């Protein structure tokens, strides 16, 4: 009997401990998602003062909306452009920063500092860099006699310009995770590899990279999520233009909700985003996670 009471006590304690977090989780993650699901099945825009149920009309409209598809594909290309590159670069930076003989602190600072700069400030700075004629990039291209380019005003360039800027911002952050991971690799492994006369590349391939896999997975997921979350720069730089060439899903949601006041559609779009991110999470936690953790 005492044991049961003890167990009961533990349960109560545990739930009390979790209560504060749970309240906020409920209020600001689960309840809103639930509300959004419901609202996504209603027509709630400027033409309908009272929201009314309209089944899957919002979703149908969304699938027929060219801008939606553009925005979705943009986001996927954007993820493709930023995730592998920034992760790979971060790994390279970490390897270098770990081994650098001179100015280790300088190197780490130089790579990492963009992380502490707000995206909004980053956008301001890069908007100026990318400005044709007297932006920094124009000046530099001038030196090399390459003539001017309208980086943000041309559909073919704008994505690349954005991708590069985001890589600049993010790579340093991921570098830290790799630095942490590298610390955890026991020196003995390197020593025994050295004794066998393995080349640097082989060491990397056989020792470093596999042992960093958990870090790589972790960092990739964060990078992928970020590529959907990061839209601050669009507010300052292109607002999604030209002609939606740089538009991303979250920014489209923002436009739909706060510019068009089409709440039904904004809800439907939010649900699409939530489902997408959850799907990625599922892949990581139920699929890959099992395969790459050695413990």
């Amino acid at each position: 009997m005492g044991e049961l009471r003890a167990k009961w006590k533990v349960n109560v304690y545990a739930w009390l401990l979790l209560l504060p977090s749970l309240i906020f989780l409920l209020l600001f993650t689960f309840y809103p998602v639930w509300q959004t699901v419901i609202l996504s099945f209603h027509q709630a825009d400027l033409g309908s003062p009272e929201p009314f149920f309209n089944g899957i009309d919002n979703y149908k409209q969304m699938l027929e909306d060219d801008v939606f598809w553009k925005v979705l594909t943009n986001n996927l290309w954007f993820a493709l452009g930023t995730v592998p590159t920034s992760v790979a670069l971060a790994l390279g930076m970490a390897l270098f920063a770990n081994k650098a003989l001179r100015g280790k602190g300088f190197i780490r600072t130089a790579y990492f500092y963009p992380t502490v700069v707000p995206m909004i400030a980053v956008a301001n700075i890069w908007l100026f860099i990318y400005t044709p004629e007297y932006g920094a990039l124009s000046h530099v291209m001038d030196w090399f006699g390459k003539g001017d380019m309208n980086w943000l005003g041309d559909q073919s360039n704008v994505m690349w310009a954005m991708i590069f800027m985001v890589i600049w911002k993010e790579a340093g952050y991921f570098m830290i995770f790799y630095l942490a991971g590298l610390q955890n690799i026991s020196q003995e492994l390197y020593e025994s590899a050295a004794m066998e006369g393995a080349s640097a590349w082989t060491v990397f391939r056989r020792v470093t990279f596999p042992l960093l896999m958990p870090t790589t997975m972790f960092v990739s997921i964060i990078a992928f999520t970020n590529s959907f979350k990061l839209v601050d720069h669009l507010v300052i730089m292109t607002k999604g233009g030209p002609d939606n060439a740089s538009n991303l899903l979250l920014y489209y949601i923002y436009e739909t909700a706060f510019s068009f006041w089409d709440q039904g559609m904004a809800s439907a779009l939010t649900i699409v985003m939530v489902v997408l991110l959850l799907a990625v999470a599922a892949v990581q936690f139920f699929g890959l996670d099992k395969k790459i953790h050695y413990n």
Partner: protein
Amino acid sequence: MVRKLTSAGMYGLAVVWLFPLLWVVWTSVRPRELATSWTFSADFTLANFAKVWDAAPFAQYYFNTFLIVTGVLVAQIVTATLAAYAFAKLRFWGRDVLFVLFLVQLMVPADILIFPNYNVLRDLSLLDTKIGIMLPYFASAFGVFLLRQTFKTIPHELEEAARMEGCSWLQILWRVYVPLAKPTYIAFGLVSVSYHWNNFMWPLIITNSVENRPLTVGLAIFAQSFETGAQWAEVSAATVMVIFPLVLAFLLFQRQFINSFIHSGVK
């Protein structure tokens, strides 16, 4: 040879990486007429900063941001510590299910839910308040995971010893676990502060008035406020003012910053 080349390349990359920062600082101290040209002259001025300080209430923005960031951090530490202990050390009913729920927050963060959360705040009549900005972030799945991992590594014997001395569970937490997890707290604190200092979209839609507007929104509004076209010198000055504290803090404490990350076992 290859090594020398990659070395040089990486140093070069560091210079390229530094360039935007140098550029914006440079432009902010040039007189506005010279802001867009690359002539080297000895002309430097602080007039841009004076103008910016005058034109928008940056002092208020600093204060707001500071309040928001601190408020969120304190709340997060409290809620995350409690929850992490429960997950790390207690066996209880529904533990795995709840854990998955926390996981969901990691994948569906408040940033994605700006629109529905806006509606929630509206229902609570908390629009245009600093509290409103902070609330959705009070529960931090990230913090819970970090701390749980750390707590797990703390040997159970310590807790048992404390219990035998008659400590209540709250005291055990405070006396045993929290001090041992200090590096984790620092790492988490740095991530949280950095994140909320930089947060933009959410405060943008929540705040209207100057009393509640943080730095990021203030900067954006300032930069976009020129119907006459971008005033690069002033925008650069404003940008420098906004990023200065964090960059300075980072420069001074970068070793601790990075080390705490490494040692907190963030994988």
